[in-house]
């Protein structure tokens, strides 16, 4: 075992478990990376919307797989191959339960949310989109929920429609509904905006679209780690999320799709594993989900992801949601108290993300000065350039919270901002 968890580096006194039994200090002990100094200060990691850190349970699961169980899946009769196949498929089951899906065949492993969206764009939508048809997204989307649609729209001479947002960064629902037309072939929206922190009213969005028989894809990259999701209750047609933002490894993502849709969709990539039989005359494709998982997949990815989801299940996603909500409220109150700071994204329903700009100081400079204090935040356009244009700013500084962050870390952020003002004073 490594001796990374050196608590002498942690300046914060052990917190008492809160009323709900959420013991953040005990949680922090599970994350080896948090216990280090950066530029002489204890690391304060507030860049969770970019990627999250991994608990020892996830790291151990991946190590264990490579040390004991590694083999290719779905092909061998030998012990290790059967073991690896079982672990891989059990991970699918864990994801199914986590999302509340009715059938584990509705869970497809991909590389990332980005790949999940591209898969739907290049299979389902490519099949159904014709010249003059439309795809509807919102003005708060991440580039990964814009560009795949632009690509398929361009190819099919279809139109990408964008529903506007208001000054608080909330979707204008009437405008959204107005843009739903008989030519709309799919709606694709973020559950939770990575740049603004806005939680979209998914139930209403989905009802409005379904009333016109339009399927809805939900980009869950930011919501899966911090909001309870039940795909059957939501009744979304597709839901995508990434492993690395939910305390799992990079390189693994999930596409949930309703079974009848997936079964009718053409395959995404060709190769091994996605076929039942191949001859030069005729190839028969495998059943879902394997039809969409060509080639040897990332096997350690789903195994690591499973450990991450089990970790979250043990804490309870509702407890995480509550914890992060308290952090966001506290951070909003403290950061917005600074003169000259303007929050970007002030929706009534928000989670996880605090985006701001500071008068006279570019976000990039804020980022460098905070980094010197050991505080990691994201500065820039957050892969959402249209959002920046909407608010007339070139970039923002963004602090984003995770299940292991503390109020003391927000105090450190506030001290860091004071330092920024000192330098630029």
């Amino acid at each position: 075992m490594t001796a990374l968890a050196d608590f002498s580096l942690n300046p914060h006194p052990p917190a008492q478990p809160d009323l709900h039994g959420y013991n953040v200090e005990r949680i922090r002990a599970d994350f080896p990376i948090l216990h280090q100094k950066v530029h002489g200060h204890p690391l304060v990691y507030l860049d969770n919307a970019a990627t999250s850190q991994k608990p020892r349970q996830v790291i151990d699961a991946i190590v264990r797989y490579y040390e004991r169980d590694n083999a290719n899946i779905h092909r061998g009769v030998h012990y290790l191959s059967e073991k690896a196949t079982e672990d891989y498929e059990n991970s699918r089951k864990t994801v199914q339960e986590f999302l509340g899906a009715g059938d584990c065949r509705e869970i497809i492993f991909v590389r990332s949310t980005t790949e999940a969206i591209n898969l739907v764009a290049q299979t389902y939508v490519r099949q159904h989109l014709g010249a003059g048809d439309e795809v509807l997204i919102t003005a708060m989307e991440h580039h990964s929920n814009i560009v795949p649609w632009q690509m398929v729209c361009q190819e099919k001479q279809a139109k990408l429609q964008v529903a506007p947002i208001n000054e608080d960064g909330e979707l204008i629902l009437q405008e959204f509904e107005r843009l739903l037309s008989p030519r709309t072939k799919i709606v694709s929206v973020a559950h939770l905006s990575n740049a603004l922190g806005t939680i979209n009213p998914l139930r209403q969005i989905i009802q409005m679209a379904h009333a016109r028989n339009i399927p809805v894809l939900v980009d869950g990259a930011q919501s899966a780690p911090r909001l309870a999701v039940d795909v059957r209750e939501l009744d979304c047609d597709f839901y995508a999320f990434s492993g690395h933002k939910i305390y799992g490894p990079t390189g693994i993502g999930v596409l949930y799709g309703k079974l009848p849709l997936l079964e009718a969709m053409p395959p995404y990539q060709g190769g091994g594993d996605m076929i039942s039989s191949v001859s030069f005359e005729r190839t028969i494709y495998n059943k879902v989900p394997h039809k969409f998982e060509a080639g040897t997949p990332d096997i350690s990815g789903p195994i690591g992801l499973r450990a991450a989801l089990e970790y979250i299940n043990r804490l309870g996603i509702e407890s995480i949601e509550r914890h992060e909500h308290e952090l966001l409220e506290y951070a909003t109150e403290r950061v917005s108290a600074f003169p000259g700071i303007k929050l970007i994204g002030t929706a009534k329903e928000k989670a996880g993300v605090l985006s701001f700009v500071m008068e006279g100081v570019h976000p990039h400079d804020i980022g460098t000065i905070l980094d010197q204090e050991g505080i990691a935040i994201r500065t820039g356009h957050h892969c959402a350039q249209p959002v920046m244009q909407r608010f007339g700013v070139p970039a923002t500084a963004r602090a984003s919270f995770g299940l292991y962050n503390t109020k003391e870390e927000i105090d450190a952020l506030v001290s860091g901002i004071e330092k920024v003002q000192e330098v630029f004073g």
Partner: protein
Amino acid sequence: MAGLRDLYQEVILEHSKVPRNYREMADADHKAEGFNPLCGDRFTVYLHMEGDAIQDISFQGSGCAISKASASMMTQMLKGKTRAQAEKLFETFHTLVTGHGPGPESELGKMAVFAGVSEFPARVKCATLAWHTLQAALENKQDAVSTE
């Protein structure tokens, strides 16, 4: 904090707040736009050449303190310089901000204050954005010359 003070020297902060030659140039004979897609910094550099000499130079755009101050001080430094001199100065400046010398006594004069950037590799692109944009503007001129 020492590193931060090296980066954000008074003269850099002052130029970022009150940038010099910060204007659109109506009679520019060459201009180029520079863009750092990673952080969203965007500048336009305007040139008015007289023969081989930079008769006038200005810039506009948005960016962080480092990129703005670098652009401001660059325009002050390059007025009256020849293209060859400007290119040589960019080379020297690039060497400075990437931490490969030269010392503060170099021909960079006031711009030697950017030496602190070398401790912040992520900020090298900020410091050199205006210079890359200048180079693009100068190359436009070469193209024009070769066409004639």
